[in-house]
């Protein structure tokens, strides 16, 4: 095997796994420009980004689960709902307490998931599904299927309005705070994934659990942390979603599990683990936003959009994994 060939493969492979999704984004941009002259306007671009910030928050966390070689976390939607409801419930103690409580829920669910999957090696899909059932059932039981309102719960402390405004704050009057939070999370988690001790060890854990374990890496802790990060960003997203919707309810966040997987995988984090980046995931999220935007601008109805989205998903991931496989690098 010649040296040149391996080298070239690596470059090409990196190109595919990181930039592949931005290539798709570029195509969408071109189509968008052809469809509407207002497509490239700042307002439209901001709305594309604004429409996927919550998804983006969920996806950057979910990426860690996929990156660790554990497919997906199906308890994301209930984590979002639970943290939102708990935050609203805690508004009577003030806005800080509310946010803290919401994050605590994420911490708790993440810890349980992380412990069971990291320590006892339960299948992640099935376990998180069970977790979703249990938490959803609990939530509905505790709140008797009602939804609760931040403006009511937080009326006494005046925190309700603050909570509702969480999603609506704009930085310098133009940039939504959610986008800033997403950017902060993305940059932070990018460094965590690529530059931290944990992230580097997680990469090996994801690529080969056994090899990582026998390299002295604390694999249980790493996998646990991956689920914890996922649950934490889901909690943050849940608080924002609740703030946006102005209600806390058990059904919030439905569909975000598969949507997050879509964004993560289309963004180049392979299901086999240990490959991909937050940069790619953000690309995946943007592509999903752009795709919806362009299709609506083209006047394609919701149903046809579903079909196109599904097809693009399979196609994009297929091309990506196929090119990796052809280079002898991946098989997933």
């Amino acid at each position, binding site marked *: 095997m010649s040296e040149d060939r391996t080298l070239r493969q690596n470059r090409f492979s990196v190109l595919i796994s990181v930039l592949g999704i931005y290539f798709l984004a570029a195509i969408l941009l071109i189509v968008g420009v052809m469809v509407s002259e207002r497509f490239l306007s700042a307002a439209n671009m901001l709305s594309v980004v604004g429409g996927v910030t919550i998804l983006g928050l969920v996806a950057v966390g979910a990426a860690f689960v996929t990156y660790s070689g554990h497919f997906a976390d199906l308890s994301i939607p209930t984590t979002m709902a639970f943290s939102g409801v708990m935050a609203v419930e805690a508004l009577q103690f003030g806005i800080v307490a509310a946010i803290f409580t919401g994050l605590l829920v994420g911490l708790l669910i993440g810890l349980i998931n992380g412990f069971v999957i990291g320590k006892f090696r339960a299948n992640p899909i099935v376990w998180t599904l*069970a977790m979703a059932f249990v*938490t959803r059932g609990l939530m509905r039981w505790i709140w008797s299927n009602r939804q609760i309102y931040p403006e009511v719960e937080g009326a006494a402390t005046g925190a309700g309005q603050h909570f509702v405004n969480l999603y609506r704050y704009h930085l310098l009057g133009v940039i939504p705070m959610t986008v800033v939070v997403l950017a902060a999370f993305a940059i932070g988690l990018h460094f965590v994934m690529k530059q931290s001790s944990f992230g580097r060890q997680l990469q090996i854990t994801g690529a080969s659990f056994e090899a990582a374990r026998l390299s002295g890496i604390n694999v249980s802790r790493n996998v646990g942390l991956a689920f914890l990060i996922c649950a934490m960003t889901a909690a943050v997203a849940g608080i924002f979603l609740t703030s946006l919707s102005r209600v806390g309810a058990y059904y919030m966040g439905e569909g975000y599990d598969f949507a997050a997987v879509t964004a993560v995988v289309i963004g180049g984090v392979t299901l086999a683990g240990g490959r991909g980046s937050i940069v790619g995931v953000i690309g995946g999220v943007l592509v999903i936003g752009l795709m919806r935007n362009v299709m609506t601008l083209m006047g394609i109805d919701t149903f046809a959009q579903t*079909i196109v989205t599904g097809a693009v998903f399979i196609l994009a*991931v297929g091309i990506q994994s196929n090119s990796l496989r052809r280079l002898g690098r991946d098989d997933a």
Partner: protein
Amino acid sequence: MPSQTDVVTFVNRYRILLLLALVFLFMALFAPRFLNMFNMTIIMKSASLNAMAAIGFTIVLICGHLDLSVSSTISLGAVLVIGFRPDLGWSGAIVAAVAAGGVVGLVNGLLVAKARIHSFIVTIGTLTIVQGIIYVYTGGAALNVTGALDFALADFLEDPILLFFPPRVIITILVIVGFEVFFLRTKPGRNFYMVGGNRETAWLAGVKADAYVIWAFIISGCAAALSGALFAIGISSATTDLGVNSLMIIVAATIIGGASMNGGKGQVLYSGIAVLMLTVLFNGLNRFGVGSEFRILASGVILASVVLYEAYSNYKKERIRGQRPELLKELDPQQLKNVASSLKTRKLQE
């Protein structure tokens, strides 16, 4: 003389049957208006939809893959059987609906086996695509039997003809038992397990692994479509999202029924019984008059317990893997009592 390990093995082996018996017994004793013919019919009818669709999910899982598209394939079968009914008649419509399910399965299978895309991704994709196709076909509205009202077949399928078994339930049982016998007792059937147990081995032994994977998906598509179609005939109409709640129940039931996400394990009969067990549970809880949150909570707790139990026993098994029996004999009996041992727990595969 049954020892402790015998009991453990027995429980492990017949877990799902014992669970069903337990739940049934509990409900029979405590749930009001539970134990009567009519209610048994209801339970059997309710279990049919997911039990038949679980065949496909189970066999795909046995082959080492996932088929998340079952839920929209159930809806597809339902929508098409009602949609084709005016043009093709019932038999033609059923054939067409099942064939359409088969086509979905074929596409899944080809993408997984030939294009080598992970089944998790492929079937999330086809899940949405098929749902989109259904919406486009129906315009978003449900379909029903039109023109001269023909409820004859529906009434036939839904009314018990034997004890508490209506024909639709009997068909479901026959299909499940048929597939169970096929997968457990026939040569091609065993090959599905072999493909899931070790794809390479199967391939090297001349078993066309790809073909079996594709067939597994086709069976899955057909079973899901057939169960959707029969259900739709029974209610003389079809909604666009008929199967939307089925996926999670099927996944839970299949796992509770003993199938493994790693492939090579599981039985369609046990998956069916697990669906029945969950249905008995739901029915019983309804008899108590509690809200639907308890159904979710109860199934979640059962699923979580099963997953935890399996993960924990694997964890323990891993710790004694490779133990030397002759070394253990060195220990005095008092010590041996406290040592986890691999001596007697070898599981027979039937």
